[in-house]
């Protein structure tokens, strides 16, 4: 078995084209970008960068999240579920879904915020699009805050804090 591997190596080694373009080395420390996924390992890098941190098949997976090493610097939080974490990781998709008034990024935001009326949430995000996403340069924090404002200021959406 191992000899088979060896036999294949010399040639395959030559064929590995640049698998490496996306390597982003983390510093292994907690950053200041917020809680959870968005803050670990990348220091002050925006959370979205993590989409490309581990290039396919984990070529650079050293920046990913250990299971036992703790995943959140905000204590035992629901890492995947914070609205801000979600915005950081899904901003491009969420903006598109909001503009369309439809899509599973809206569904996820509604689940995180315990909203009961999904169609109303979708309509509200579309209606408030320019408030939530005022410009492509708005920060994730600004987007998150405006999004929460829309979700939690209209009781008809049935969203609950916490």
């Amino acid at each position, binding site marked *: 078995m191992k000899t088979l591997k060896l036999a294949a190596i010399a040639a395959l080694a030559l064929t590995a084209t640049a698998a490496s373009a996306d390597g982003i080395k983390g510093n292994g420390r907690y950053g200041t970008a917020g809680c959870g996924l968005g803050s670990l390992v990348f220091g002050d890098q925006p959370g979205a960068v993590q989409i490309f941190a581990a290039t396919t098949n*984990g070529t650079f997976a050293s920046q990913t999240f250990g299971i*036992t090493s703790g995943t959140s610097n905000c204590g035992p939080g629901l890492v995947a579920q914070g609205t801000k974490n979600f915005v950081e990781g899904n901003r*491009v998709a969420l903006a598109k879904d909001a503009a369309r008034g439809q899509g599973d990024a809206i*569904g996820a935001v509604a689940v995180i915020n315990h909203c009961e009326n999904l169609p109303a949430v979708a309509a509200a995000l579309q209606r408030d699009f320019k408030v939530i996403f005022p410009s492509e340069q708005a920060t994730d924090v600004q987007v998150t805050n405006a999004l929460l404002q829309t979700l*939690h200021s209209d009781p008809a959406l049935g969203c609950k804090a916490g």
Partner: protein
Amino acid sequence: MLALALSLLLAQTPAPAPAQPPAEVDRLALLASVAPPRREALPRLLERARAMRLGEDPGWIKVGHYVPGPFGWKSEADGEDFFRAGKAGKRHPQAELEATLAALFEDTAPVADEMKDPACRFPARLRFLRDRLGIGEEVLPTRPCPRFEDFRRRVSPVGATVVFSSYYLNNPSSAFGHTLLRLDRGERRDSERAELLDYGVNYAAASDTSNPLLYAVKGLLGGFKGEFTHYAYYYKVREYADAEARDLWEYDLALTPPELTTLVAHLWELGATNFDYWYLDENCAYHVLTALEAAAPRLELVKGAGRYVVLPSDTIKALYGPPGLVREIHYRPSILRQFQARVAHLSPAALDAVEALQADPEAPLPGALGAERAAVLDAALDHIDLWNFKALVLGKDPALSRKRQRLLERRAELGIPSAPLVIEPPLAQAPHHGHGSFRLGAGGGASSTLGPLVILESRLALHDLLDPPDGYPPVAHIEFVPLRLRYAPRHQRVELDEGWAVKALALNDLSRFDQRFSWRFQLGAETLRDRGGNGALTFAAGFGGGFASLGIGGVADLMAGADVDVNAAPGIAGLRGSGWRLGVGPSALVRLRAGDRAALLAEAGWRWLPEASPRETWKLSLEGRLHLVHAPNGHDLSLALRARRAPGEDSAQAVVYAYF
């Protein structure tokens, strides 16, 4: 009340965070109220474990990742702290079991770091021992493991899913696809559960190099540490489906609640150790299966997944070994499929508008109805994201981000929701339908120079343009170590006709919305069949690009382009008489397909050979395949008939292919 809640929510902007999860601090206090284990019970339990030969129990074998070998058991885990019995633990499951049992009773000093407490470090082993030896609370009181509990609460699965991310030729490390495990927070897919918020568990090599050459060598030699990590599933959806335009196939598994509990406990154990990562067999796909087997020892998955090379698609097929394990299949279309679905029904005027919007986001929208205009903007947005997702996420192209923002604003202003995009899953392409990745071939033929021929072929992986089409993308040819030997009995001569380390071809259908090149690449050795090459076996490398038009009339695919080849061997008449020969020239191919039963491929190539003798060469080939047997486990059978012409030899061959 609402205002208060809102202000609390808004207040969670970045605040200085504690460097360690606060859970760590509590543990000592919690421990103070836990009674110590009854140590006097230990000798009796050890005796019983020995009498039962519990170390050989499949549950223990699998949770310790032991595999049988020529010298007895050996664990595939490579982290030293995975073994309580030290070095002996890697090879002796019974010794490891006894050491673990003893540690649970004796290694109970109050320490703040729960990973130093065997009860917290090995929750799946603890479950197994409690269950098999009947160790109750009164003998071994449950110890507080706040971090593990935190992990368990966070993932809290009611189901598990194996996710297959389709073949991606643009990155060599994922050309064969990728699998990961998803821990599902709900059974239904509806308003109460968003799959995006599930957790994905990934096993991957922790690469410490950005040198692709070193990456390949270390990957093949087990030089990387493989580690289990976890993510919000949405990261994986963004990476695979959006950034790389790969379809995701999700196989929901029928696991019982206790098996899911063990799975989570075992992932915790794995998360704290590492394995040597072997690109070919002990890879991402393989360890998804071993983790599942550890959680549910009743499952035999690894045995069905191939012996020498374990590919992600093999592991998906292995899920169909145990009856009823796959509960349901779901398909998540890539951004490419979504875009294709959106433009499929647009009028010519609407298509023109989609194109115009790429350059000018203020371009006029056709149609009087809001829905028509929305459809145009929706397609235009998907088109931007399809080709620029990475630049958008990283903010690398401000002008483009600005354009997209305008399109989004125009779309939102229409004020009507898009209808959910319904895309029929291309079920024939689901990876579990594919032929086996390993292929053997045997046959015979005749050569104009050597007379009768015996042909033997082998291929480690994966798929060429003529192989049975089910389970694979129709546009890709990716082969890893295909070899063809020819024996000419009249001349008592054995030759390597072709042997490639890698051979790849990617066809991209040229259209107004997709202007990607088609390309090919190969590297290995081939015997030259022309006058300058003189039947010599040469080192061979080649690449080329061109344009393709696919699915013409539903049956034909065409590609035409230009290639550059290099051949080298002592004695061939190459550049200025050296052993190196350069070839440059056009190539073309035509493929015809008759459903999933037969296919025909014609290829032609002409090369100018600068400063060589003679100055040109060419090749023609025609190959037909009949797919005789398509078996559910991928053990297919096909017949190949091929004819070839080159300046130095004409030949005809018939080969039977068996897939494993």
